[in-house]
């Protein structure tokens, strides 16, 4: 019943969504001293339950609406819609139980009730089942968004840089997720100085590292544990980076597709807007915005999101321009498909992998941006990030001491995480690169998209962020002459030199007959 080819895709996205939710909620109420079972319960109840009851109500309304619309329009995946209604009912029940009814009750935290972790589990399982049923009900659409996880992973695994990046990232994500287990959140309290268990005395400010766990990275200017700050900072740094990049990519991809797809004044207008944003120096702008909008990490996400999209827009636009010229789009236009249809069914699936690769690279830049803003003192003063740590180290003169234990860990962590994302993005780019992938073509080509359309290619020169075109895909691996591996054109009926695209267009034309 469940298409096997969606399995990896669903698991992959479930993990990502769960990680983001988990990072978002920041469970402060689980002190490690309250017993291991409490910590575990708190850990698993945190992600959705940390929101107030009215969020549950909102989610319930969304579920009801989506399910009802689906049922009324008699969509193919009937069981999916029914399940959506059930999920909505569970959310509603959760909200009512947590709030206890009444107008004021809706602002109560949803994890007020003692068995919220059980409800949470039900919600997650139902959610997973919903996605699953949707994919089963709409195999074509699902396939357009999956673009073959197996194949990509097979190629990706061969890239050592990508694997190293993934390894580093997994370590840091685990550290961020497991922060409640690794370090007591209570130690982040401004008055919580750490004591040396051997002597029972406070370490005091700027104590160098010792073998005591919480003093592995020494103490800061007021005698707090740097290790605790370091571990909990990973949450904010990663979360802000991911969400800001997500926001920037959604904005950039939307504008890029619009600019590329529509010709004439509309496309020109979007392009002008992009160019104008591209020349605005982001740090001064971000500083002005951060100074005016106040300092919490949601604002930082917003600021990075709205200042860093033009690079993405440009890359996506150039790829859309390429895709637009492919013959199957011409054909779709010829048979009178609407712009909306062509955009969502043909253009989007073809640029989707590029958008994703770009997203990964933008995460690296977003994390650096967050660090920079926090370092300048514009970060969230209530929540530690690596940038905030460096800010405190700087303004308190750690460099003059020199308190290397305070400076090195956050900096090295930033470098590693940024490198990891860069490696992953570059490796993924290479996986998508037609020159590289040609090797697998004969077997995999038709699986990349649903109807034998030319598989996805990455236009060279992915200019991400400020500079542009550093990690140009396509120029990275192709050291051999691929010609001998699997010659380009299938037949010699046409002049040579068509190259990769030529070969595929030829295939497409054949199909069109």
């Amino acid at each position: 019943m469940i298409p096997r080819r969606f399995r990896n895709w669903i698991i992959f996205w479930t993990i990502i969504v769960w990680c983001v939710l988990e990072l978002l909620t920041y469970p402060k109420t689980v002190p490690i001293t309250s017993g291991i079972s409490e910590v575990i319960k708190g850990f698993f109840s945190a992600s959705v339950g940390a929101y107030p009851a009215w969020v549950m109500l909102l989610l319930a309304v969304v579920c009801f609406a989506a399910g009802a619309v689906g049922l009324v329009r008699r969509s193919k995946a009937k069981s999916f819609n029914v399940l959506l209604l059930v999920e909505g009912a569970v959310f509603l029940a959760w909200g009512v139980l947590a709030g206890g009814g009444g107008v004021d009750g809706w602002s109560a935290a949803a994890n007020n009730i003692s068995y919220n972790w059980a409800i949470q589990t039900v919600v997650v399982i139902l959610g997973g089942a919903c996605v699953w049923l949707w994919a089963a009900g709409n195999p074509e659409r699902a396939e357009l968004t999956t673009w073959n996880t197996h194949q990509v992973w097979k190629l990706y695994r061969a890239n050592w840089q990508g694997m190293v990046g993934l390894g580093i990232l997994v370590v840091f994500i685990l550290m961020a997720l497991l922060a409640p287990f690794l370090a007591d959140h209570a130690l982040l309290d401004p008055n919580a100085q750490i004591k040396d268990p051997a002597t029972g005395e406070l370490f005091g400010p700027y104590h160098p590292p010792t073998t005591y766990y919480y003093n592995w990275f020494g103490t800061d200017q007021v005698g707090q544990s740097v290790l605790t700050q370091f571990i909990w900072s990973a949450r904010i740094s990663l979360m802000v980076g991911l969400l800001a990049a997500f926001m920037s990519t959604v904005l950039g991809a939307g504008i890029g597709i619009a600019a590329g797809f529509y010709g004439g004044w509309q496309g020109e207008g979007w392009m002008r807007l992009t160019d104008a944003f591209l020349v605005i120096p982001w740090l001064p702008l971000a500083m002005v915005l951060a100074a005016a909008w106040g300092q919490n990490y949601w604002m930082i996400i917003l600021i990075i999101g709205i200042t860093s999209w033009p690079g993405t827009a440009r890359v996506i636009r150039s790829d859309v321009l390429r895709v637009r010229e492919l013959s199957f789009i011409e054909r779709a236009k010829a048979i009178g498909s609407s712009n909306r249809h062509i955009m969502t069914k043909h253009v989007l699936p073809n640029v989707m992998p590029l958008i994703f690769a770009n997203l990964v690279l933008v995460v690296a830049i977003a994390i650096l941006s967050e660090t920079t803003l926090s370092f300048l003192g514009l970060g969230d003063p209530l929540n530690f990030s690596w940038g905030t740590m460096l800010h405190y180290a700087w303004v308190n003169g750690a460099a003059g001491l020199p308190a290397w234990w305070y400076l090195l860990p956050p900096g090295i962590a930033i470098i590693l995480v940024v490198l990891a994302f860069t490696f992953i993005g570059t490796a993924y780019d290479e996986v998508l690169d037609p020159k590289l992938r040609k090797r697998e073509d004969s077997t995999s080509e038709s699986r990349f998209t649903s109807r034998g359309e030319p598989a996805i290619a990455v236009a060279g020169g992915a200019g991400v962020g400020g500079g542009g075109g550093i990690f140009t895909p396509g120029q990275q691996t192709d050291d051999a002459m691929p010609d001998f591996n699997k010659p380009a054109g299938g037949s010699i009926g046409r002049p040579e030199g068509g190259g990769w695209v030529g070969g595929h267009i030829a295939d497409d034309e054949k199909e069109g007959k």
Partner: protein
Amino acid sequence: MDKRRYFIRKVLNAVLTIILVASFNFALFRILPGDPARLLLPKGKTDPSVIEKQRKTFNLDKPMWQQFVYYWRDTVRGEFGMSFSEKRPVTEVVAERIWPTVLLVGVGTVFATVVGMIMGVFAGWRRNGTYDIVSTNLGMVLYAMPTFWFGLLMIMLFATKLRWFPTGRMEEPGVELSGFASFQSLMKHLFLPAFTFAIAYVGEYHLIMRSSITGVMKEDFALTARAKGLSENAVLWRHVVPNAMLPTVTIVMMNLGFVMSGAILAESVFNWPGLGLLSYDSMQKRDYPVMQAVFLIASIAVIVANLIADIMYYYLDPRVQA
């Protein structure tokens, strides 16, 4: 396209963009939450009569379109109001900060460009050799590294531990030097900030040049040059490098526009009295008139750098002249 039309088009384009960005600047400081008249006053001054006076001086009581006209008049005249932290005209405050920034950015950029590009050329030429692997990974690390963190490490190592260089500022406070001694002192103060500023770009230019060289080396004309019997070195420097320079030069020039970001960080860490430190200080003190001026200058720098890049491209790449 002939030369004059190309240049005129580019210049017009730049002027148009400057007008757009300056208008954005006008809008930015008015869409910010809060009363602009309050924003343009130091914190804590809430006396209604003062606010009213402020409103008058900045024409904030007039309708939006008139404000826009006044804004343009003042901007063209170079009047940005009074800095309330320094109690002096913004123009004056900004003017004395420009040269230190130009010095820092100039030295840093020249260093980064020369070193980064040469490193990149050799890495791209001997691809996958030991040097390439080492230098490229180093380049990636430099690129991923936060500039200010590197600056702090530099201070820690060279200023605190080894005491080779001062920890910051442009000159020793209270010491009057002249002639060569003052130059020497300036260089000593300049070294660390300029190096810090440059180091991130070294990584970037290295990676760009390397990938550019690799791309160009696959072109047929590189093969032609080898077939002609030219030595490897001649092929590299006479045929490959001139072509590989093109994208790199564009990116160097574009980056030159974005130096403000690097300058803010390097100058704040090293207390270098330039525009970057000024914008950091004014941000801390919420000195909006100064921020507005610095923001405008930074934007114009980007546009002018882009224009210069276009003009340079015209001379470097004959294909543009067609």
